[in-house]
C-alpha cells in the first residue's frame, strides 16, 4: 500500500488511521513517519531529553493499542499529541519520586550537547505548553508553520 508524502490533509490521515485500525501495519508505519517529528518535538518540551528519546516508542505503542478508541479519525494528530503529553507528565511524575532530578539534568546536559543548547532548552521549558511545543517543533524539528498546524491542529490565531 503506497501513500504520498508531504503535508497531508485530514482526509488522507483518516484513511490511514482507518486502515491501521483494520490491522494494516504499513498504514500505521506511514502514520509513524508522518508524526514522529511532532512527537519527538513535543516530548523534550516536557521531560529531560534523554528520557524523551526513550518515550518515543512508548507513545506510538500506546497509540497503536488505543487506536480502536479514537472517535474522530481526522483528529489523530491532536489525539497523538495528547498521548505524548500525558505520558511525559506521568513519566516525569514517577521519575521525580525515584531519582535525583538534578542528577538527571546533569546526565542530560552531558550528552554531547553544548551549554548553549541546554540553556536554550531550559529557557523554552518554562513557557506555556502551546509556545514551548511550537518552538521545539519549529526550531528543533524545523517543521514549518503550516506543517505544525496540520499535524497538531494548532492554528496561528
Amino acid at each position: 500500500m503506497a501513500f504520498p508524502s508531504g503535508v497531508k490533509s485530514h482526509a488522507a490521515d483518516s484513511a490511514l488511521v482507518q486502515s491501521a485500525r483494520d490491522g494494516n501495519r504499513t498504514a500505521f508505519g506511514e502514520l509513524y513517519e508522518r508524526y514522529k517529528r511532532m512527537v519527538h518535538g513535543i516530548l523534550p518540551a516536557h521531560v529531560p531529553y534523554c528520557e524523551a528519546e526513550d518515550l518515543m516508542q512508548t507513545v506510538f505503542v500506546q497509540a497503536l493499542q488505543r487506536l480502536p478508541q479514537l472517535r474522530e479519525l481526522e483528529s489523530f494528530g491532536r489525539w497523538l499529541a495528547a498521548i505524548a503529553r500525558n505520558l511525559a507528565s506521568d513519566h516525569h511524575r514517577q521519575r521525580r519520586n525515584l531519582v535525583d532530578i538534578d542528577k538527571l539534568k546533569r546526565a542530560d546536559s552531558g550528552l554531547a550537547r553544548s551549554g548553549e543548547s541546554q540553556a536554550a532548552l531550559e529557557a523554552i521549558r518554562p513557557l506555556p505548553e502551546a509556545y514551548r511545543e511550537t518552538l521545539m517543533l519549529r526550531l528543533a524539528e524545523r517543521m514549518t508553520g503550516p506543517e505544525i498546524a496540520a499535524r497538531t491542529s494548532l492554528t496561528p490565531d
Partner: protein
Amino acid sequence: MHDEYLWDRSGEADPEIQKLEAVLAVYRSRDRSKHAAPRI
C-alpha cells in the same frame, strides 16, 4: 520578510532564527534504528 522565514522558512533568512535552529539542532529527530514504528 523575516516573518516569512519564521513561519514557513521561506523568504529572507533571519540570522537570529537560524542561530536558534543551529543551537537546538542537537534535539532534532534523526533516522536511527531506535526510531522505528513499533510492532506489537
